[in-house]
C-alpha cells in the first residue's frame, strides 16, 4: 500500500502507522482468506440470544434454528404464494377424513450431527420419537419454551400431560411415535394450520440426549440434523459450517416452484441437480445499526443486506416503479418484497375512556371518538415520512401477504376524512373541553417519538388539543409489553409478523378469548366476530373461509378497534455473483441451503 509510505514520519503518526501497517497488509483480506471454500455472508438487523428451537421466537433465532435443526416441513424455495414441501417428512401427511388424525413418515438415513452427547460422539439416526419429544418440550416448564401456543388445546392429551407434571416417561395420546419412522398426531378438533406450524423453528427436532447433556446450554450447543452445524455464536454474529452428513437431495427447480418469467435473472438454473447446502460456510452478522450495516455491505464485507430505510435515498432510483440506482444495479441483485406482517395502533377496548362502556350512550360516543381518530389519521403522510412512501397501506387486519387479502376491498377506512371525523365528534357531543386525555404507548426512541408527534399533529386537525395527547414511553420493549399485556396502555402501537401464510394468524389478534395477556392486545370482544372465528377455525382454506375472514375484517373496521395498517416494503440487496433468492418471511432461514455461488457450483459438481 503506497499511501502508507507517503505519510509524514512524525513521531505521532509513526505510532498510528505502526498499527496501520498491519491493517494495510491484511485489512481487506479478512473476508477473502476463506476463498478456498465457499462462504455466504448474511446480515441481520437484530440478534438472536438463544438457539434452542423451543425458544426461537424471533425471526433472527428462527433463521438459524431451521438451518441447525430439521423441521418436518418447509415452504418451497421459489413458489409464490408459498406452498408446503416435505423436509424431514417423507411426504405430505395422511389425514383422516375427519381431519383429526395426521400420520407422518420421516425419511430414513437422517442422522444428527456428531457430538459428544452420543455414544462415541457419532450422531445417531433421527426417529419419530425425537419429534414427539421435541413438541412435548414446549409443554415442559423446565424448557422455558415460547412455542406452546401453537399446539395448546390442539393436540389430544398434551395439555393434560403438562398438568400432570410433564413427565417425559408418560405418553401423550395425541402425539405418538407409531414406530421408528411414523408419527401420529391426533387433534382435539381440526386444525388447518397444523402443517404450517411444523415448518417453524419451534417444531425443529432435538435429540433428548442433547437436552439432558447440555441443559440450558443447548441454546449455544445446537445438536441437530439440519444442513449446517454451528461453528461459533456470539453477540456479533454466528458462523455455521456445512453438515457433511446432510441428506443428499438434488435441487430441482421444478419441485421448488421455479417461475422462469420472474426468476430467471437470479442465475438459479446453474444449481439444477446439485446437492444443497451449496455453501461450505454461512457467516451471519448481527448488525442492528443501520450505518454500520450499510458501510459493511458497501465495503464488500457482506453478501446480503436488508437495506435500511435511512439509506433508501442512496439505494433507489425511483419509487414507482421501484428501481435501483444504476451504480448499485450493476453490482447487486435487488428484490422489493412486502413484510409478512403489519404495523397497527390498537385502541385498548378495555379502557372505558375510549373502549367499551357499560352505558350504551357512552359506548356509542366512545366508538364515534375512535372512528374520528381513525379518520383523522393520515396514512399517506405516515407512509411518506417513515416508510419512504413505499409501504402498502391497507384497511383492516388482513395484510397483503396473506393469501386471503382482498386487493379490491373498500379503502374508505384508510382515507383521511377530516370532515367526517369532525362530524362524528360534534354529533356525539365531543368537544375540546370534554375529549379524554389520550395516552399513546411506545418504546423510547427518536423514531417512535417522531411518530407520536405526527399523530398529535394529525389529531390537532380535528381540534384535539395537543395537551390532551400524551406519550407513555417505556425504556425497553419488555416494559412496554408488560404494560399493554396488563391492559395499562390506552393506544398500543405494535407490529405483528405472521407465523404462517394464513390470515387466521392475524385475525386471531382480535378474537375475544385471546385478550391480554394473549395476543389480542386491543382486548376486542365482538360476539359476531368471535362466532365467525370459531366457525372458520376448523375450516381448511377455501373460498367460503376466505369470505368469512373478510367479513371479520370488515367487523373490526366498522368497530374502529384499530388504526390499521401498513405492511412495510423490504428492499433486499445481494451480490450478483450469488445464485439465490433470499426470503425474509415464511420461508425464512430455509433459503440458506439453496444459496449458491459460481465456484460452489463447480465444487458441488465435483463432489457428485
Amino acid at each position, binding site marked *: 500500500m503506497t499511501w502508507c509510505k507517503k505519510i509524514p514520519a512524525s513521531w505521532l503518526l509513526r505510532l498510528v502507522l505502526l*498499527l496501520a501497517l498491519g*491493517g494495510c497488509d*491484511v485489512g481487506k483480506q*479478512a473476508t477473502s482468506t476463506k476463498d478456498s471454500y465457499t462462504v455466504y455472508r448474511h446480515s441481520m438487523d437484530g440478534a438472536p440470544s438463544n438457539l434452542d428451537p423451543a425458544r426461537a421466537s424471533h425471526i433472527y433465532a428462527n433463521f438459524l434454528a431451521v438451518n441447525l435443526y430439521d423441521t418436518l416441513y418447509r415452504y418451497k424455495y421459489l413458489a409464490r404464494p408459498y406452498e408446503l414441501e416435505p423436509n424431514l417428512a417423507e411426504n405430505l401427511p395422511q389425514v383422516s377424513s375427519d381431519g383429526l388424525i395426521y400420520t407422518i413418515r420421516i425419511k430414513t438415513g437422517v442422522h444428527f450431527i456428531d457430538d459428544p452427547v452420543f455414544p462415541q460422539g457419532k450422531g445417531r439416526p433421527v426417529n419419530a420419537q425425537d419429534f414427539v419429544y421435541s413438541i412435548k418440550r414446549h409443554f415442559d416448564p423446565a424448557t*422455558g419454551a415460547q412455542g406452546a401456543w401453537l399446539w395448546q388445546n390442539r393436540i389430544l392429551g398434551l395439555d393434560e400431560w403438562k398438568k400432570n407434571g410433564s413427565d417425559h416417561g408418560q405418553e401423550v395420546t395425541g402425539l405418538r411415535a407409531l414406530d421408528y419412522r411414523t408419527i401420529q398426531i391426533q387433534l382435539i378438533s381440526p386444525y388447518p394450520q397444523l402443517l404450517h406450524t411444523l415448518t417453524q423453528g419451534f417444531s425443529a427436532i432435538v435429540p433428548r440426549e442433547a437436552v439432558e447433556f447440555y441443559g440450558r446450554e443447548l441454546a449455544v450447543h445446537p445438536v441437530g440434523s439440519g444442513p449446517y452445524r454451528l461453528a461459533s455464536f456470539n453477540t*456479533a454474529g454466528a458462523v455455521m459450517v456445512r453438515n457433511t452428513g446432510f441428506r443428499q437431495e438434488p435441487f430441482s427447480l421444478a419441485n421448488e416452484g421455479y417461475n422462469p418469467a420472474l426468476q430467471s435473472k437470479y442465475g438459479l438454473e446453474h444449481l439444477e441437480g446439485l446437492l444443497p447446502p451449496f455453501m461450505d460456510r454461512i457467516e451471519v452478522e448481527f448488525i442492528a445499526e443501520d450505518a*454500520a450495516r450499510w458501510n459493511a455491505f458497501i465495503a464488500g464485507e457482506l453478501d446480503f443486506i436488508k437495506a435500511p430505510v435511512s439509506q433508501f435515498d442512496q439505494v433507489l432510483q425511483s419509487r414507482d416503479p421501484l428501481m435501483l440506482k444504476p451504480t448499485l444495479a450493476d453490482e447487486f441483485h435487488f428484490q422489493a418484497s412486502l413484510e409478512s406482517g403489519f404495523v397497527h395502533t390498537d385502541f385498548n377496548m378495555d379502557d372505558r375512556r375510549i373502549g367499551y362502556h357499560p352505558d350504551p350512550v357512552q359506548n356509542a360516543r366512545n366508538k364515534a371518538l375512535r372512528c374520528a381518530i381513525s379518520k383523522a389519521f393520515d396514512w399517506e403522510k405516515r407512509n411518506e415520512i417513515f416508510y419512504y412512501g413505499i409501504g402498502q397501506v391497507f384497511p383492516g387486519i388482513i395484510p397483503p401477504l396473506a393469501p386471503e387479502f382482498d386487493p379490491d376491498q373498500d379503502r374508505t377506512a384508510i382515507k383521511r376524512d377530516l370532515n367526517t371525523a369532525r362530524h362524528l365528534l360534534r354529533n356525539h357531543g365531543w368537544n375540546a373541553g370534554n375529549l379524554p386525555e389520550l395516552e399513546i404507548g411506545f418504546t423510547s426512541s427518536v423514531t417512535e417519538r417522531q411518530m407520536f408527534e405526527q399523530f398529535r399533529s394529525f389529531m390537532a386537525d380535528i381540534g384535539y388539543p395537543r395537551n390532551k395527547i400524551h406519550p407513555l414511553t417505556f*425504556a425497553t420493549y*419488555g416494559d412496554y409489553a408488560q404494560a399493554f399485556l396488563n391492559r395499562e396502555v390506552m393506544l398500543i402501537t405494535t407490529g405483528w409478523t405472521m407465523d404462517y401464510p394464513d390470515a387466521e394468524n392475524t385475525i*386471531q389478534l382480535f378474537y375475544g378469548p385471546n385478550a391480554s395477556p394473549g395476543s389480542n392486545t386491543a382486548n376486542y370482544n365482538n360476539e359476531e366476530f368471535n362466532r365467525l372465528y370459531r366457525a372458520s377455525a376448523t375450516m381448511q382454506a377455501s373460498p367460503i373461509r376466505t369470505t368469512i375472514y373478510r367479513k371479520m375484517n370488515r367487523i373490526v373496521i366498522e368497530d374502529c378497534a384499530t388504526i390499521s395498517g401498513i405492511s412495510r416494503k423490504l428492499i433486499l440487496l445481494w451480490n450478483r455473483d450469488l445464485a439465490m433468492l433470499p426470503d425474509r418471511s415464511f420461508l425464512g432461514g430455509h433459503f440458506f441451503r439453496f444459496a449458491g455461488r459460481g465456484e460452489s457450483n463447480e465444487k458441488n459438481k465435483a463432489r457428485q
Partner: protein
Amino acid sequence: MRTILQQIIRGLLLILGVTFVSFLLMVWFGPDQTYTLIGKNATADQIAEVHHQLGYDRPFSQRYLDYLGELFTLDLGTSNSSGEQVSSILKRTLPVSLALMLPGFIIGNLLGVVLGMIAAFRKGTWSDRLITGLSVSGMSISFLIIIIALQVLLSTPYGLNLFPVRGWHVEDLSSYLAYVTVPTLSLIMVTLGYNTRFYRAVFVAESSREHILTARAFGASPATLMWRHVLKNSLVPVTTRILFSIPLVVISGSLLIETYFGIPGIGKVSFDAITSGDQPILKAVVGLTAVSFVLVQIVADFIYRLVDPRIA
C-alpha cells in the same frame, strides 16, 4: 499487615455496599424479563410460570444473599436470555474486550501524558493553546460521530477502504492489527482530549511547586525538569487515574465500539443485559467490577508507597 487487613475490610464493605445498591436498583427499576421471555398468546399461568422460574417471586433478602453466595463461590449461574453459563460468557468476552481496549487505553494515556507535559511546560504559549483547543474539540465531538466518520474514512469505498468495517476474526497478529486499528483510533480520539486536559492540569500544578523552581535555579534542563521532577512527583494522580480506569476498561468494555464494530466483547453483553434485565449477567458484571475496584485500590496503595515514600 494491619494496613492490609484494614484495606481488605474496607474492600469487603465496599463490595457489600456496591452490590446491595446495584441489586436494589436491578430489582426495583430493572426491566421485568418475564415479558420478553414469554411467547405469543401467553396465558396468565404461563406468565406466572416464567415469573417464578426467574425467581422474581422470592423475597429480596433471600435473593440478595444468594447473590453474595454466587459471588463468593464464583458460581454465577446462567443467562436468562441465552441459557449460557455466565462464567463461559465472561471467559469468552473479557479477553476480547481486553484485546480491543488495551491498545487505545495505553496509547491514549501515553499520548495524554506527553501532550499534557508539552502543554504544561509551554503554558500560555501557542502550543499550549493549540493542544488545549484540540483537546476541548476532541471532547466536544460525539463518540458516535467519530466512529462513523473513521469507519467511512478508513474502511469503506467512500474513503480509503483499508480496514474491515467491522468484525473480529482474529487469527494472528496481522489480523488483530487489521481489526483493532480503527476502533483504537476512535478510542484514542475520544479519550485523548480528556486525558490531555487532566494531565496538563496535574503537571501545571506540579510545575508551580517550590522544588521545581529550585531545580530550575540549579540549571536543570527542560527535559530533566519535566521527566525527573514534574512527572515523577505527579505519579500519584497519574497512577490513580490509570489504575482506576482499568476495571471499567476490562469489565465494562466499550459498548459503542463493540456495537458499531461488531466486536463480541463484554460491553455489548452488559448493555444487552441491562436493557433486557438479564440479572445473572448484570449481577456478575457489577460484582466483578466492585471486586476489581477493591483490588485496584490495594494495588494503587502499594504503588503510591513505591512512588512517594512520604505516603509510607
